[in-house]
């Protein structure tokens, strides 16, 4: 909670862990793998999370993103490689253990009760109390004040923390969940597709809060399948495909166009457009996919040919 503001500019120049000034990462994975029976869900994943940095995990459905976060959040255990927290090798056996280590996950369903007021949701399960014995009661005023302040610090100004959380927009609810995790001492914040169900404007709001959390010194793991959301906020990018890492980049080493091209796979898109056309698919959809192909082609003019040949081969 007392994490001081960090100047992001100096951070990006600094190669080392900014708060501890040691080469130790807040969280690091090396060649981590996981299999369920004979199904390999994840292999050879290497990534790091630092204070005040955003690590983005990108990948399509079934790429292994959820397996990865489940390992980090303590829901599953890895079988291969090493997982270090502050340089210490760990294997988390439960979400509780992850929370104790300061790793908090905000899932898509957010774990909020929509009919309950915002402040009750904020403190749900960790209510502040005063008094003792049978007269132990909730410290309602303090809880309301803290909720209001914490949300204001995240840039959400609410006149009324009494309104049911269901009345907030999807983006705002996401932000309350993030603020809650931050307030209860998270050092690492895992955000599972926070922008997946949101419109353009709401996604922008959530992205801003990701930066807020980063500037408060948290290490953020941002899982998404949208490179346009990941690139503006991310410092590192891990690309997953079919359970394997297909790239791990620092921001300075990659452009958004390259990221998009890697994600989408230009050749696959072209193939899809062709297939749709053959099947007599709706012309609008075909055009849309073709436009996407053109986009990807434009973005990687130097490598498009080689790229698609590599993929085809």
């Amino acid at each position, binding site marked *: 909670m007392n994490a001081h503001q960090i100047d992001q500019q100096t951070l990006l120049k600094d190669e080392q862990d900014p708060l501890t000034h040691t080469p130790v990462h807040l969280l690091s994975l090396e060649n981590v793998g996981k299999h369920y029976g004979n199904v390999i869900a994840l292999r050879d994943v290497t990534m790091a999370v630092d204070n005040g940095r955003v690590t983005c995990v990108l990948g399509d459905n079934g790429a292994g993103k959820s397996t990865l976060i489940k390992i980090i959040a303590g829901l599953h255990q890895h079988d291969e490689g090493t997982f270090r927290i502050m340089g210490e090798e760990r294997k988390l056996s439960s979400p509780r253990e992850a929370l104790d280590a300061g790793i908090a996950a905000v*899932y898509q*369903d*957010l*774990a*909020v*009760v*929509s*009919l*309950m007021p915002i402040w*009750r949701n904020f*403190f*749900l*399960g*960790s*209510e502040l*109390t005063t008094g003792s014995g049978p007269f*132990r*009661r*909730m410290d*309602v005023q303090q809880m309301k004040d803290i909720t209001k302040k914490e949300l204001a610090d995240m*840039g*959400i*100004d*609410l*006149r*009324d923390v*009494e*309104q*049911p959380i*269901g*009345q*907030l*927009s*999807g*983006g*705002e609810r996401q932000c309350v969940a993030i603020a809650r995790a931050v307030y209860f001492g998270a050092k690492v914040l895992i955000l599972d597709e926070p922008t997946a169900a949101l419109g353009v404007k709401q996604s922008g*709001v959530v992205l801003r809060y990701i930066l807020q959390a980063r500037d408060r010194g948290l290490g953020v793991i941002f899982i998404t399948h949208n490179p346009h959301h990941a690139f503006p906020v991310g410092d590192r990018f891990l690309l997953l495909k079919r359970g394997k890492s297909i790239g791990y980049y620092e921001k300075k080493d990659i452009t958004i166009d390259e990221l998009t091209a890697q994600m989408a796979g230009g050749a696959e898109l072209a193939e899809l457009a062709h297939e749709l056309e053959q099947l007599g698919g709706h012309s609008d959809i075909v055009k849309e996919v073709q436009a996407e192909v053109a986009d990807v082609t434009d973005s990687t003019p130097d490598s498009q040919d080689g790229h698609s040949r590599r993929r085809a081969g």
Partner: protein
Amino acid sequence: MANAVLTTFTPDERVSSRSPLQKLLVRPEIGALVGAVVLFIFFSAIAPVFLQPNSLATVLYGSSTIGIMAVGVALLMIGGEFDLSTGVAVITSALAASMFSWYFSMNIWIGVAFALVVSLGIGFLNGWILIKTKLPSFIVTLATFLMLAGLNLGLTRLIGGAVATPSVSDIEGFAAARAIFASSVNIAGIEVNVTVFIWIALVAVASWVLLRTRVGNWIFAAGGDANAARAVGVPVTKTKIGLFMAVGFCGWILGMHNLFAFNTVQSGEGVGNEFLYIIAAVIGGCLLTGGYGSAVGGAIGAFIFGMANKGIVYAQWNPDWFKFFLGLMLLLATIVNLIVKRRAELK
């Protein structure tokens, strides 16, 4: 902070513009309160005797016998479950106290304590089976209802040899127990039954627990979204079992009142009463799906019930109309609740 600043920063201006009137309108009990006022004026107008202090005391007594149970049932409903076994569980409690004391020839207070254990035990069992089997509470408590109805009749005949229990009026401790559970208090010349005060006290305690304690927060959360509640560390299992036991406790109080008011218990009684308690809670603004409602609402629901029940008599109508009236109230109240919920969940 200045409001003007807040308004400019509020991401959604539609949310920030809530007037005090709108805030009042989203209270769970507002529909019931309006209904109660309308009903009160209505009966006052057509039946002048309705307004006499003695009649009001009678109405309050009738309301309290429903209201005491409605407190527990409303809490349980906010916690996302409901209980069909309450009607017969009240009789079970009364039977337990009287048969235990009579059979073992013991002080009635031992029977009363035994009945408390039985009532809490029934509640615990309901909750425990619900959690273990993950069956809907409708099925679990319907089964308990049938089993208790059978046990009430069977055990009473087996032990006492009749369908009613022997009178408890000459058992040691009867006078004191009667004073606590079934006496009346004289206020300015009007006899007000003690159950009215027990009812008010229960509503006050339940409201405090619901709105001002951690447990209250957990009850709302367990009923609103049990999975989300679990994810943030709310002990949902304990909360739900506790709620069933609270219903058991209310049933014990009402059972003791019945026992000491009438001295004997008919073992076949109680069937159907569970719906009255549920109706009172629903009219009072509790959502059947859980997560929303208030103890005060349940009390107003019970008061509406009491007014209608006695008001029809004072108006010298045929009591046949009562059931129709009750159904209509229930329908209207549920529709109001639905609108409230939609508004509250508006995105």
